[in-house]
Structure formats: C-alpha cells, structure tokens
C-alpha cells in the first residue's frame, strides 16, 4: 500500500500529464503507447526498472528523481516522441510544439534568479 505522500505525488503527476503532456491523436495507439509508456516508466519509477532506450538511460542517469519536474518530463516526452515508429511521423507538428515548450522552459530556467 502506497503512503499518502506518494499517492498525492502520483495524483499530481497524472493530472499534470493529463493537461496536455500526453500524446494527442495517436493513430496506432497500442504500438506507440506501449513504447512511449516504457520510456515514461523510467522517469516515474523509484528504481529497478529496466532502462531500455538511450534517451531514457541518459535521463535516468541525469535525474534519478521520482516524478520529475516539468523540465525533465518535457525533455523525456520529446525524446520519446522522436523514437516513435515512422508511421507516427505525422506527429511532427506535435513534436515541434513540445520542442518549443522545452526551449521556452529552458530559457526561463536559465534566467538569473530562476
């Protein structure tokens, strides 16, 4: 049984992702989602989860926190999207949107005092 603090974290994280940080309009949901989910598992599990992809490895090594912050998640999302099967390449517009979001976040984080 999860403790209350962890449940609150999960609730908050799931809600955050529901607000636009999930894939939209996947035409092959099973294939794309399964692969995407594998990447996200790495970011959201405490430990002992198999790291299967290069970006996930890099993220896991670099961050290592449970329920990463906004910046880390957006990086992961972009990386995961770039790995999607070629049949999902029509997602290019969504990828570009997320990349712009990451750039914007990076700029804000790099501002003095952030």
């Amino acid at each position, binding site marked *: *049984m*999860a403790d*209350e603090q*962890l*449940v*609150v974290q*999960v*609730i*908050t*994280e*799931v*809600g*955050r*992702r*529901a*607000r*636009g*940080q*999930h894939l*939209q*309009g*996947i035409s092959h*949901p099973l294939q794309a989602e399964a692969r*995407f*989910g594998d*990447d*996200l*598992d790495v*970011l*959201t*599990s405490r430990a002992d989860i198999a790291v299967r992809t290069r970006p996930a490895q890099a993220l896991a090594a670099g961050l290592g926190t449970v329920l990463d912050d906004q910046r880390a998640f957006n990086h992961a999302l972009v990386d995961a999207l770039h790995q999607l099967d070629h049949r999902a390449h029509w997602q290019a517009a969504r990828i570009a949107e997320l990349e712009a979001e990451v750039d914007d976040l990076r700029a804000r984080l790099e501002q003095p005092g952030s």
Partner: protein
Amino acid sequence: MRVAFLKPDHGGVGGFERLVERCRARLGERGVAVEQVAFDARTRARRLHGIPLDDGTRDWHDEYFLYLTALERLDRLDLSGFDVVVASQPPSYLARHPSVVALTYHQARVFYDLADEFVAAGFARPRVHEAAVAQVRAVDGDRVGDVRTWLTGSEEVAARLARYWGIDGTTPFRASPEVLPVPEVGELDPAGPALCVSRHEWPKRTELVAQAAVLDPGGRYELLGGGSRLPWVRHLVERWAADPDAAPAHDPEGTWRNRGAWQLPEGERPAGTGPSEHLGGRLRIHGEVDDAARDDAYRRAAVVVAPALREDYGLTVLEAFAHARPVIVCDDGGGLVELVADTGAAVVVEPTAQAIAAAVAELRDDPARLQAMAIDALEAARRQAATDDLAPLVDAIREAAGGADG
C-alpha cells in the same frame, strides 16, 4: 451532416440512449445523421499517462483515477468526421472538437460542489482529495472554454458552471419525463404508501425515507431502485427495527453521510438486490424494478418523496406529477426544489427524517389538501408535456453546424 452524441460508458443503458433516439428521429427528418459514440469510463487502467497504477494506489482515490482514465480514452477517439459533437456526462464535454454542444446535468461533482461532502463521508482522505480536486479543476479549466454551447438541466447546474468555471449565458434544457400525464387524477388513497423512486447512491439520501418509515408508525413506505447503498439501507432498517429508539438519534453521519455498507464487515452486509419487507410490512424495499412496476408503484402511492441533496434535475418529480402525485422534497434539493416551485403540488421540508415523516403524516391526515395537490401536480405535468423540450438542443446543434442543415 453528422452529429456524434458522446457517452461515457458506465455499463448502464437508460435515459441517454432514449434521448439520442428521439434526437435521431427529429434530426433525421432534416438529413442529419446522429450517431452515439461511447467510450469506456468504468474499466480501471493498469497504467495512466505512462504511470503504472496498482490497486493499492488506486484505492486511495478510485474516482480520480477513473476520471482521468476516461479522459485519456476520450482523447483517443477520432471525432474529426463529425460536424458537431454533443457531450453529456463528465468528462465528455472535454472532447477536443471545434463544435461541442454540452448537454450538462452535472460536473464531476465530487471534485466541485460535493468536494467537502465527499471527504466528510469518508470516501477519501482530506489531503488526497485536495490534490485530486486541484488537478481535476485544472484539467477541466484548461478545456471547458472551448465548448461552444452549454445547455443546462437546471438553474442549480447553471449556477455551478458559473461558480466554478465562470461560464454564464447557458441555455436551459429541461428534458421531459418518458411518462405521459395520466388522463385524470383517478383514485388517490391518502393512506397509500409514501413512495421513493431513486437509486440508492450517495448522496441520494434514501436512508432518510427509511428512517422516516420508522419514525411514522402510522405510515406505509416503499423504496424503489437498486444501487450500491441498498445493503446499507437494509442494514439501518434492521437495526432500527430491533431498537426503534435508536432511529431518532441517528444524525446524517449515522445515516447518509458515510461510506455505507463498506463500513460493515463483508459477511454482515445485507442483500444488494431483490425485494424485502420490514417493520411488519409497513416498509417495502423493492430493489431494481422495470418501468411497469415503477408506474404501478406511482399509482399506488399517496405521495412521492425525493430526498436527494442538491440534485441536478429531478426526473422522479416529473414522473410523480405525470401520475398526479404530490411530492415532498428537501430544501437543499437543488433541481428538485426548482421543479416544484410555484406548482402547488409539493411540500418542501428540511432534510431530516423527522421532517419527512411529519409531512407524510400531515398529508395523510388531510385528504382534501392531498387531492388538491394531486390536481396541481397533474396540471404541472400537462404544462411540461406541452413544451417542446428538444428544441434548445436541436437549435444548438444547428447553430453549431453553422446552419448547414437548413
């Protein structure tokens, strides 16, 4: 033109399907194709937005995870082939489509107007619910501004949309009951049962009617409807039958503001289905019945009790009126109170079993008043039947489609 009626599938078939059928007939005359599009809103997901959910986590707030799971499934629907999408229950009004007409009877209420009651009843821990409420409101808030037209089932619902989402200028939509008004009042037995037609769910407060039956030894009462709290209602009645002095002392926390039968050990929960009789036959609990049995119960009844808290609409009131039966509602009944206003066919009481029992006894002892109220009830039903209830919805669909159907 193609119109999708979106329905979160909770496993039941009922009023929504019949409404879709009526719209299909009405819009079909204009060459508009109406299709029902359902999405799963009851199967618990193993993973949500990439995060694995085990039973232990989910049990902390099942409603929250189910809500977002349903939303994830809604987002996977391809609605691009439809000109207009008619949304209904939450979260269908969050559909991503440029022309959404939301036919709203309620928001996901435990995250809005029932948030405090939900915690008070013990369904979720305060901190956990606070986090869930914040997330649902943020998720909803990001999207509800995209809905083109809001149709609301009552002033109660319109006020909630204004209060929580800042949405004003909603259009009233008052669906007719599926029961035509009887030709005349007919035989009305003042000593007939006080009838409650309602699902036994929180916070319908059917417990109050069972409690009133205990407190009113001269009255007969009947409860119709299934639901997850039916075993709890039976449990309370059995306790009160064994110790009648205990009934008056039961406050809301002991009756309806709690988790119901989940508080009882598994082996001690009464049956959740089928009929039962209590209090020497004065109280009959029927469980789920078909429409014919329901209508027969309305005909037998002297008065209909609708005790729900802040109800969105109140079909049971309209059904009672169609059968020429007066009603008793509680002053915090929301849409129920709206429906009976200015009809002369209702008694509005405070939300206690004592007040309900007193009102039932008062009408039983005053046959002339009961008869006059029955006439007024039937008159209200006839007025309702004379209105074109579908018109606001049909107009909204046509407007959303840019008048393409003429």
